[in-house]
């Protein structure tokens, strides 16, 4: 039940017990691991081509059908607005990005800490299960208004908390899974060394869980941005991408609104890329061994 926000089952290696033959691995399975996706320039060409094609189609439609900008602006116009308002977009992105980053870090740390606690004391896990499920299904919009009241409408904190909650769930769930993932053989080994609980935690449990934590963090990364952004919708100090999008849209300046949306997309991608990179770095050995 607590696996609501879980990434599909783990990377290769954890499933098969006998799958240690090199030949069984070199061939790999068909399909991809989205976790390792927007890696480096491996196959940037194809998605870029598709993107360019889509943009051309869009721009063509805007031209040919003479669509008014207040219905759908064309990509060229959006790009123009983006460049023209670069300062404002960057300022807004900085506000939203900072909130998302703080939410990501704090929510991530708390998620890991809670997972450590739950792994150490399964009682906690069972007690937390209903809360975790509730938090994971509750729409942010439902929480944001009461959170503003609880923490103060003049604070960025509420947005950070909203982002933090969104981050907490996947990080907690994945980390907990990671802590349970520590191979029994490794636990036995440490026990045979007469190692203490802390030594076992430090040498085996934590490192085994690290890739899982980062998987959770990657899933959470764009959630953090989107959540921080939606929270702006419900209050807090003025500034930020969400407020800018709605503000521009409410005066029908959709070109500008989409310029801010582009900012949001780039910010989301940045967060995703950074966490995906971290994930890749931290699972460079574990993924294969």
């Amino acid at each position: 039940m607590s696996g609501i926000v879980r990434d599909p089952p783990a990377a290769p290696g954890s499933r098969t017990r006998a799958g240690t033959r090199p030949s069984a691995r070199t061939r790999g399975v068909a399909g991809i691991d989205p976790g390792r996706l927007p890696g480096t320039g491996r196959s940037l060409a194809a998605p870029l081509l598709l993107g360019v094609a889509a943009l051309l189609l869009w721009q063509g439609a805007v031209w040919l059908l003479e669509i008014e900008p207040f219905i759908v602006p064309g990509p060229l116009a959006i790009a123009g607005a983006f460049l023209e308002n670069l300062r404002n977009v960057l300022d807004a992105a900085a506000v939203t990005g900072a909130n998302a980053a703080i939410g990501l870090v704090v929510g991530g740390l708390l998620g890991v800490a809670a997972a450590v606690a739950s792994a150490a004391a399964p009682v906690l896990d069972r007690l937390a299960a209903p809360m975790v499920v509730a938090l994971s299904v509750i729409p942010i919009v439902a929480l944001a208004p009461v959170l503003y009241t609880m923490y103060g409408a003049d604070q960025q904190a509420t947005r950070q908390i909203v982002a933090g909650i969104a981050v907490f769930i996947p990080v907690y769930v994945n980390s907990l899974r990671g802590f349970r993932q520590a191979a029994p053989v490794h636990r036995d080994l440490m026990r045979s060394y007469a190692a203490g609980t802390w030594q076992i935690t430090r040498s085996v449990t934590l490192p085994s869980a690290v890739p899982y934590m980062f998987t959770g963090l990657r899933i959470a990364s764009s959630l953090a941005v989107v959540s921080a952004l939606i929270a702006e919708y419900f209050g807090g100090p003025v500034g930020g991408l969400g407020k800018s999008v709605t503000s521009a849209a409410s005066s029908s300046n959709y070109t500008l609104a989409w310029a801010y949306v582009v900012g949001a997309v780039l910010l989301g991608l940045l967060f995703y890329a950074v966490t995906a990179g971290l994930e890749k770095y931290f699972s460079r050995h574990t993924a294969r061994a």
Partner: protein
Amino acid sequence: MNEAHSDRPAAAVEVSGVDRIFRSGREEVQALRGVSVTVAAGEFVSLIGPSGCGKSTLLRLIADLDTPSSGMISVFGKPPRQARLDQDYGIAFQQAGLLPWRSVRGNIELPLQTHGAAAAARRERVDELLAMVGLSDFGEHYPDQLSGGMQQRVAIARSLAESPKLLLMDEPFGALDEMTRERMQNELIRISAETGCAVVFVTHSIPEAVFLSDRVVVMSPRPGEIRDVVDITLGTAAARGAGLREEAAFYDAVRLVREALHGAEPAAVRGAETR
């Protein structure tokens, strides 16, 4: 019990009348029944038996990774727990069980580090061990950069790190292909001779058990009992070369173990067999 043995040199392992019953929910599984066996210091003993007969369970009891339901175990005259705390044994499993985020050196170092050995001493000991398993050039590699056989050698080096007088090995070569496996067997013979430690070795393979051991303990299907103990008289470990595998004495021993293993049971398929 330990007192009784204190005046003569303690056996490496002494197991007497051990039962192990697993309870999970309503079910009860008797894994071991009345198992008694003694491993002398420096002796190489293999445990062989059908899958699920309790070989691993017995090994885990000796290593104090599990406790018997009844019966007594002593390791070098001490309770297993004390032996574990004193690091009297090293252990290796079927899966090499290396920590993938540590280099080869880091893995071998692990037990030393856990016990707070100084960095310099650790370094020296690891170099020694790397040389012993022929991996001096691979200290900085990571497990995923090694072949299965090399990983298993690292695991053996790790189990030897504290210079234990007892080595516990649970199918350490089970995942290797036959050629690598034979090579590893040769190495193990050499190492156990060099270090003079006693070995309790779990395996499925009759030729492997015969090639390596001074004695082969044959176990019956669950509930695991000791069905027979076959003494192997193929000469000292140091004298066993690769050529041994082609000698008639070797084949005779293999046949003896096979017969002990298959026992009274007919070789035909048991249709109702389930896990």
